[in-house]
């Protein structure tokens, strides 16, 4: 298991390091503090705030997805820790594309200054991978690569300074003002502003290219692993929050002369939610470990993603149901949780993309 018995030292693989535990606690604290400030817990208007972002950057958290060698302090596992704890807030949806952007930059290599600028909060990066695109087309025209395609409802898409793209043939870094790149701001189902990114016959110049060929393939695989780890971590943190709220609620809500937590039918459903949550944590851990070890993405990675989202959805729906009327109001973060999990399911590159891949593969 996690220890090499003859040495007696902890070779921590499943549990967190002390540093990771401290990191988790400080993220959780900030999120809890901020939760008090927002106008309504389930609000739709959780837009990006550059000042708050700077504050996050100063805490150093943006370095969680990047190794020390590349100027950060962590790796996939540390990133998962941050996202899990940030999950109850709109912050998670902003951190995830940043982390993926940084992962791609690091994996492609040669962008040290840019990585430092993103970690420090000076530049805002938004990472996407080809799995998130629709109608993606890379054409060669007179020796120049030209790119078309669409990324729907990208968080941070509306505010990013640079877009980092992991595609099968090439890894790209595009500044927001690149000709042929258009962003249309929209409000997302999961709250806050997003952007549809539309690439129309965008001409790739050499300085946009971070890597090509086999290296680009490796970068894409790495991005897939980290994306899966990020998505499952967020599911896990969000479901945990929804479950905890529900558990608290049923213990204090009285009906028919006693806390509704006493009703055995509800107890059994809460037990099933609890088991679902434990399993979701396990799947998120499996995905984080895969990213940590750079295990090539396989069936099981996709199963970890779909299994996590399925369980999170179940928990979110039960949370609303067991809250009764209160569960239907946006005073509680339950609806916001359901909307975010549903977004993680249907977004391109999300759970449905993984599910389709699983069903297409013979197995």
């Amino acid at each position: 298991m996690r220890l090499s018995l003859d040495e007696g030292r902890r070779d921590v693989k499943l549990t967190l390091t002390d540093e990771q535990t401290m990191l988790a606690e400080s993220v959780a604290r900030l999120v809890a503090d901020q939760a008090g400030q927002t106008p309504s817990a389930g609000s739709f208007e959780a837009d990006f705030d550059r000042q708050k972002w700077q504050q996050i950057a100063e805490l150093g958290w943006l370095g969680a997805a990047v190794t020390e060698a590349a100027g950060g302090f962590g790796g996939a596992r540390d990133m998962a820790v941050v996202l899990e704890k940030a999950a109850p807030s709109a912050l998670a949806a902003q951190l995830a594309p940043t982390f993926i952007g940084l992962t791609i930059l690091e994996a492609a290599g040669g962008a040290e200054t840019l990585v430092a600028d993103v970690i420090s909060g000076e530049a805002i990066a938004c990472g996407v991978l080809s799995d998130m695109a629709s109608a993606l087309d890379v054409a060669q025209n007179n020796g120049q690569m030209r790119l078309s395609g669409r990324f729907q409802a990208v968080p941070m898409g509306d505010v990013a300074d640079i877009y980092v793209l992991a595609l099968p043939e090439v890894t790209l870094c595009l500044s927001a003002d690149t000709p042929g790149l258009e962003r249309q701001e929209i409000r997302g189902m999961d709250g806050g502003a997003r952007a549809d990114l539309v690439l129309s016959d965008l001409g790739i110049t050499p300085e946009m290219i971070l890597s090509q060929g086999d290296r680009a393939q490796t970068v894409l695989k790495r991005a897939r692993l980290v994306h899966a780890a990020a998505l499952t971590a967020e599911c896990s943190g969000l479901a945990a929050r929804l479950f905890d709220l529900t558990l608290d609620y049923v213990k204090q809500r009285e009906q028919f002369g006693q806390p509704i937590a006493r009703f055995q039918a509800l107890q059994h459903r809460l037990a099933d939610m609890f088991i679902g949550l434990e399993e979701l944590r396990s799947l998120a851990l499996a995905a984080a470990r895969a990213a940590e070890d750079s295990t090539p993405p396989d069936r099981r990675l996709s199963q970890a993603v779909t299994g996590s989202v399925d369980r999170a959805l179940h928990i979110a729906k039960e949370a609303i149901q067991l809250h009764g009327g209160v569960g239907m109001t946006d005073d509680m973060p339950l609806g916001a949780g359901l909307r975010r999990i549903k977004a993680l399911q249907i977004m391109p590159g999300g759970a449905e993309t993984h599910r389709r891949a699983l069903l297409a593969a013979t197995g």
Partner: protein
Amino acid sequence: MDAGWSQDDIDFRQQVRDFTAQNLPVDIRDKVISGRPLQRADHMRWQDILAQKGWIAGFWPQKYGGCDWTPAQSYIFQEETTRAGAPWLLPFGVNYVGPVIYTYGTEAQKAQHLPGIVSNEVFWCQGYSEPNAGSDLARLSTRAERDGDSYVVNGSKIWTSMAHWADWIFALVRTDPDVKPQRGISFMLIDLNSPGVSVRPIRSIEGAHHLNQVFFDNVRVPAENLIGQENKGWTYAKFLLGHERVLSAEIGKAKRMLERLRGTAEARGLLDDASHRQRVNTLETDLLALEWTTLRMLDAVMDGSAPGFEASVLKLRGSTIVQAIAEYTVDVLGPDALAFDPARLEAETNDPAAEALRNMGIVSEFLFQRAPTIWGGSNEIQRNIIAKHALELG
């Protein structure tokens, strides 16, 4: 598969179908079909059309302005109109308080209130739930104290759908705090324009405003607004709860939503996708089972042998199926469901052709449809009722 409707019923169905096809305004129909929230004016416009035809309160006795519809006709009317995309016929006046008034009310109450319902001039809402009395309605604490010719009402009601649009509320209030919880409750009609009434909006998880909390601060209610006897309100409330019966399955609505699902899937080339087919097949099978269960229960209602718990079975399954269809439609929409803006949805309802808004309507409905498994006695409460009354388990 034909349940064996009588020729009269078949004729009536055709009549309702034709009427709806000719008279349901296209913009309202489109809003309903795409799941976008309706405004007060949308409801009223359609209900005015029905009132004109004399079909607002079809199942009421003729002498009160109804058509003496059989339960089968009520069922057919609901199925045909909702399936065609008509708005939900708001039940608060027609299905809820109206029958209570003509069954238990005084002649003066009948004369005062029934015409306004039949003519669709008075907008009613329902004041049952309270912050501390949801499933356990008998614990309600809104007080009504007798003072001369009036009652003075203090307290609040919550989850009051459309109270911000309503003229009147019928409410359960506590008139005797010293007896067993169910014994001291009265059924009262309250004019929402009375001094001391205030309405706080509650925004739902889909971002829309249809729920409210209604506060009563020393509200004077004339004693003649009491229905029946003081402290017997529980009896009238139970009468009301059993009244919807076979309508609660909402077969027509589910069929309409399945049609939209089919269209959404077809537009995305999913009709031949195996996992889509599997999913739709399950939904269709569940609906088929529910439809025939409804018909069997309707049959029992018509010959007087209905056991009384049929509404629980139909409500539980109907709400679950509609919820499942609504969610799966979002899944079929896929990434096109990611854009969602409740403010835009409310403001820009004039262009029924706008695809983005239609998609947002689907998202809105998915979120809103978490409610029916909670309201009207949560599905957990319905299981309790079935266990107790159908299975006779302690």
